[in-house]
């Protein structure tokens, strides 16, 4: 794409991103930052579908309150609800089913999930370990992938910044969704985040790889900004296409796929978009600004 300049307007990219990240962090830090699902906090959930009468979310909430429950309800579709309660055992579940049927007409229990505090604590711990392990693995990989770059540390750090940006974006969106729609974060969400991490580093590494090649070709007299832009322009077609192809299928899954994995696919999609954005508009631009800043300092010092 001739004439595409992704380097000069980078101030705006940084500004835009900073605003979004700030908003996201705000949402994450003000409790409840993320609505944690029962896999992390223990409890029971049920997905029910009312087949006889039309039931509204308000009616369902009232009925459950009358039965002495404090429910969190998410409406999934016509007469279909996801209910989260304190822990109940099977006898209680059967009784609840009967009581709801008496009040609101026939219903089907599509699924039932019950997690004890022991398991919830373990899941939390395992999630933390998984994230830490993935982080270490990715960092090692970045160190290895950038071994041939001049000043590999800077490039690696920029890749890591892009990565953190991607994860924060996904977390922020789900923090907002949690507030607005009661969408909960479960083990599959962690899965999506890790998958995003794996995928997003790809793109960034490819671009930096191209940058290395171009810097090598340009030699000492390299105009950094020019080379960065050249590298970006040369790889933009590839970056966009690969992201688009994966995005196609994921959007299809989101729109037409089953309701059980909707949140999971949504997390993947957001991660993918954030990852593409950070690779094209942030990673190398940050590197450039950093490099220039160092160059200025050196010039002033000498």
């Amino acid at each position, binding site marked *: 794409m001739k004439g595409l300049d992704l380097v000069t307007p980078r101030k705006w990219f940084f500004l835009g991103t900073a605003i979004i990240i700030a908003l996201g962090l705000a949402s994450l830090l003000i409790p409840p930052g993320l609505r944690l699902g029962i896999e992390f906090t223990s409890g029971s959930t049920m997905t029910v579908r009312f087949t006889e009468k039309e039931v509204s979310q308000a009616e369902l909430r009232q009925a459950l309150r009358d039965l002495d429950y404090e429910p969190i309800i998410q409406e999934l579709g016509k007469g279909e609800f996801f209910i989260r309660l304190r822990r109940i055992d099977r006898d209680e579940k059967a009784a609840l089913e009967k009581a709801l049927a008496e009040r609101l007409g026939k219903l089907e229990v599509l*699924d039932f999930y019950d997690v004890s505090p022991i398991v919830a604590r373990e899941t939390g711990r395992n999630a933390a370990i998984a994230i830490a392990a993935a982080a270490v693995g990715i960092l090692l990989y970045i160190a290895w992938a950038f071994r041939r770059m001049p000043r590999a540390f800077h490039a690696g750090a920029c890749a890591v910044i892009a990565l953190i940006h991607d994860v924060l974006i996904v977390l922020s969106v789900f923090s907002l969704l949690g507030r607005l729609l009661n969408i909960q974060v479960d083990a599959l969400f962690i899965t999506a985040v890790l998958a995003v991490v794996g995928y997003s580093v790809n793109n960034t590494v490819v671009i930096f790889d191209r940058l290395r090649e171009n810097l090598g070709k340009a030699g000492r007299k390299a105009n950094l900004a020019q080379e960065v832009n050249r590298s970006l322009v040369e790889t933009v077609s590839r970056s966009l296409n690969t992201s688009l*192809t994966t995005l196609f*299928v994921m959007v299809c899954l989101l729109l037409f796929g089953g309701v059980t994995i909707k949140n999971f696919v949504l997390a993947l999609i957001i991660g993918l978009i954030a990852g593409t954005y950070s690779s094209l508009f942030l990673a190398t631009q940050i590197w450039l600004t950093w490099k220039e800043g160092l160059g200025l300092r050196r010039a002033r010092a000498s």
Partner: protein
Amino acid sequence: MKVNPWTIGLILAIIAFSTWLVLTPSIHIGGFVREGFRLGLDIKGGSHIVLEADLSGLGPGESAEEAMRGAVEVIRRRIDAYGVAEAVIQRQPGGNRIIVQLPGVEDVEEAVKLIGQTAQLDFREPKLDENGNIIRDEEGNVKEWVPAEGIIDGKKVHLTGRFLKQRTQVVLDPTTNEPMVQFEWNKEGAKLFEQITSRLVGKPLGIFLDDQLISAPIVRSVITNRGVIEGLTLEEARLLSIQLNAGALPVPLKIIQQQDVSAILGADSLKRSLRAGIVGLALLLFFLIAYYRLPGFIAALALIFYGFLVLALFKLIPVTLTLAGIAGFIVSLGMAVDANVLIFERMKEELRTGRTLRAAIETGFSRAWTAIRDSNLTTFIACAVLYWFGSRLGAAPVMGFAVTLFLGVAVSMFTAIIVTRNLLRLALATPLGKRREWFKI
């Protein structure tokens, strides 16, 4: 670079084999049986239950290992007697947890009650006061029970369910048609029972299940071998007889996690996910051909073959497909195109620098290969971590996603490099290949 006919032949053979494997519904060859794909509980419908054993009550001579193995055995017997097809019972290695999977059980509540209950049967007699009368409370019920014991070989032995023969069954009382659980004693049990019943003629005998009194019939005469327990519903009687035959659990179990998925939801989700996958795939193919023309068409072919190859692997290994796993497969379809896009973009550049078509293809592939390999490495790292995470959780969806994504990406590397390259070389050999326009500069 000439096209190697052996390579083409091998590729075709693999593709043919994969297609056959995927499309044939039922395969029985020698010991190798595949009836369709293995589906996870979230698609088939069923229950996943995690039980934790309370090992605190173990005596000094009893090992945890034996107790756990015993518990698994008891559960297995109960499930077999109840009749659940394809139930899976696994013990967490070295730990005190048992995972039970019951696919498609109609009345899950009953099945779970069957498994989780310790079902320790024991017999007790009423406590007597100094005059030998039964101490009763205000309502006239026996106030206190003491364990019913007899003497065998000079030692006092408490009569419990472990002396039962595995002959417990449910019978109907001939006169009242009420269900009864009929049990039979082994040699020692019979001796004990004889001693106890002779002591208790005219008095109630307390029958306790897990420390709950379930029946207290008045002993009419001395009984030795057989006995009945009355006062239960048919369902209760059936469950109890299964439990008595399977034996009591050596240690009490508690449910720490359970998940039921109804078959309706599962089937619905599967249908929708497949539909989404097909639409997505169609869009992909359309995009490939529209944007990259002839190479795109070749990539589309390679993609379809790739799809069949991965599905064949899923059937072969076999991989348990969950909804997340299917999502992983569909995502890997998108990523498989990735590799092809990389190659084509590289080819475009080589062509722009003026190389011949043939040279462009070859250099395109070798340059792109390092990029493909490196970029897939991060996905492999993520998959490895995810697989570990999923296995710690016992969460099939997480593991399923990790496996399908890993396999998908690995196979995509194969198809992109080997299949696409050879098809392109093949295309070069045809008249179409001479025309650069088809290759989109």
